[in-house]
């Protein structure tokens, strides 16, 4: 039903991304003005909170981690022609897997415990994403609808585990027991909450970038996304590439669940994510489905999110404004694609 992502997803240069962000911020400013508040004061409060202090920077980096991991996963899936909108559910499944393994390994060496937790989270996320892959390849179900349904199912399932089998008996809240010290990601900067997850996110971005542009498998992935039929004719196993796209996205989103559990919450909780998996879709688009670009886009959105609560308390502008700005970024990216039609094309540019 839904065509692959062959059609140009977004504009294709850095400038258009920056322009889209500036336009979205401008639209946000107009909205603040319309409320009779001061946009300069609002944005000032927002960015000084997220970028103006060591702690603010640390908090921004912390939020960058899940956004980047999910965003890179979604970007790779996009590249394979897979529209995976299921990162949110995959993150939750990854988180509960990590927490469960972490409680099993109580008292084991830190490196062993964390490695196994990360692997469990990646496998959990990949399996959850794999359900959508099977549905797509076996039943031709559109992954857009199935992955969104799986988000709800996954989050309810985690809710069941947290209320039931994995519930911390000593707590009134639906959460797992607190992880031991060896099952927590080390803090990088003393005095802040900045944890080792940021290293994982940056490494993931670079590895994904190399994979996409410097390996045969990465080439196959891109070829499949651009033109499945041509790829098939060139002897590429398209079905396998699609499965890889699903599983990679699921594994990375699951890993984001791991960093949130082992780095931030120190346990699995019911509200592990304020919609990271959904915001990451925009992050992937703004980063133009280039892993390194996605990393920067994630950092920008993290800054917006971290500063939004301060903006609300300081200027009285609801923090939901950041969600509006984030979504507007996509619309402004898409709107720029109208430009070439009014210009004379000099070269036969390809999509």
């Amino acid at each position: 039903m839904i065509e692959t992502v062959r059609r140009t997803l977004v504009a294709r240069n850095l400038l258009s991304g920056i322009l889209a962000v500036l336009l979205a911020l401008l639209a946000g400013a107009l909205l603040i003005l319309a409320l009779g508040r001061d946009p300069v004061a609002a944005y000032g409060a927002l960015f000084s909170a997220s970028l103006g202090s060591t702690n603010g920077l640390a908090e921004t980096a912390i939020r960058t981690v899940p956004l980047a991991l999910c965003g890179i996963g979604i970007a790779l899936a996009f590249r394979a022609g897979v529209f995976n909108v299921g990162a949110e559910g995959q993150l939750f499944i990854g988180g509960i897997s990590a927490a469960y393994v972490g409680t099993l390994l109580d008292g084991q060496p830190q490196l062993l415990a964390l490695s196994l937790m990360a692997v469990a989270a990646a496998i959990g996320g990949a399996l959850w994403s794999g359900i959508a892959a099977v549905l797509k390849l076996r039943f031709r179900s559109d992954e857009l609808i199935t992955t969104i349904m799986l988000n709800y199912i996954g989050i309810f399932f985690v809710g069941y585990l947290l209320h039931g089998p994995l519930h911390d008996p000593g707590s009134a809240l639906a959460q797992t027991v607190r992880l031991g010290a060896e099952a927590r990601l080390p803090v990088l900067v003393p005095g802040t909450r900045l944890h080792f997850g940021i290293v994982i996110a940056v490494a993931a971005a670079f590895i994904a970038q190399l994979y996409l542009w410097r390996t045969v498998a990465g080439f196959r992935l891109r070829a499949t996304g651009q033109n499945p039929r041509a790829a098939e004719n060139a002897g590429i196993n398209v079905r396998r590439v699609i499965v890889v796209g699903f599983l990679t996205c699921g594994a990375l989103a699951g890993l984001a669940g791991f960093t949130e559990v082992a780095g931030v919450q120190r346990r699995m909780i019911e509200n592990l994510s304020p919609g990271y998996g959904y915001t990451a879709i925009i992050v992937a688009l703004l980063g133009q489905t280039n892993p390194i670009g996605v990393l920067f886009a994630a950092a920008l959105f993290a800054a917006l999110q971290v500063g939004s609560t301060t903006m609300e308390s300081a200027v009285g502008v609801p923090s939901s404004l950041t969600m509006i700005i984030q979504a507007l970024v996509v619309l402004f990216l898409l709107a720029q694609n109208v430009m070439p039609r009014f210009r004379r094309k000099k070269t036969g540019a390809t999509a």
Partner: protein
Amino acid sequence: MMDLLNNAVLAGFIAASVRMAIPILLAAIGGMFSEKSGVLNIGLEGMMLLGCFVGFAAAYASGSLLVGVLAAIVAGALLGLVLGVFAVTIGSNQVVVGIAINLLMVGVTGFFFRLFFGSGTSSPRITNFQPIDFGVLGQIPIIGPLLFQHDPLTYLALLIVVLAWVVMHRSTVGLAISAAGEHPEAAETLGLNVPRIRYLCLLAGGALAGLGGAFLSLSATGLFIDNMTSGRGYIALAMLILGRRYPFGILAAALLFGAADALQLRTQLLPWNIPLQFLLMLPYVLTIVVLAIAAGRTGAPAALGAPFRRHKSDGA
């Protein structure tokens, strides 16, 4: 006595099935118009959410449910127009636009809700639509709860299904819409204005999705909660495929979904010890199952999802 109880349970279940089906039904009929004209409407979720909020806010401010309904319809239609600008005029990737619209509406509705109603814990309420009293008709077993125990919006929705069928299958308008979706180039040669048809279908689709969302806040509950539609716009997309993009097929699909939703709600009240979360999952699981069954020949319009350029652009 036992019979009476069972009848009461059954009647309640049937009535609830219809209630649960209506928002999905309206959004799916709206999606049908968009898709028949060749535009994928992934933005149904956002249109529903906006209608849900605007309907509530307008009814709250004006004290009139009718004002709320009309405002929701207008808001949904406007969002259909936005989708049109991107999907029809710019020729953007329709899936991406739809997702962007949905995320935007989560932000917009959350933002204005905080602004109008503050972020206190007490949620504002309105008096919602009440069932029309048909007297003895409502007491007829099965038929009563199915047809004669509902509020005005439900009857409006059922009327819309019939109207949609007339438009799509008994009028030249329907032929024009189908032509735009199946073969836009041929439609143009026949003198039809494909972009205009698609815009009108998106306006209608947005309006109906907005109305479907308004049903949640103005009829089903009488309040607004953040992200209240919780995936119903996407479920509507699945039901529209199951119903083969045919009004009465969509009605049947929506009723099936409504029955599943009502079933899980009723089961929550029974002492069966099924964990609540598994019941809450049921509608979403059902949607996946339905999609797997309905796959294969879905009868999607040939040009669905493909932007249409009226004038041959240079080397496109």
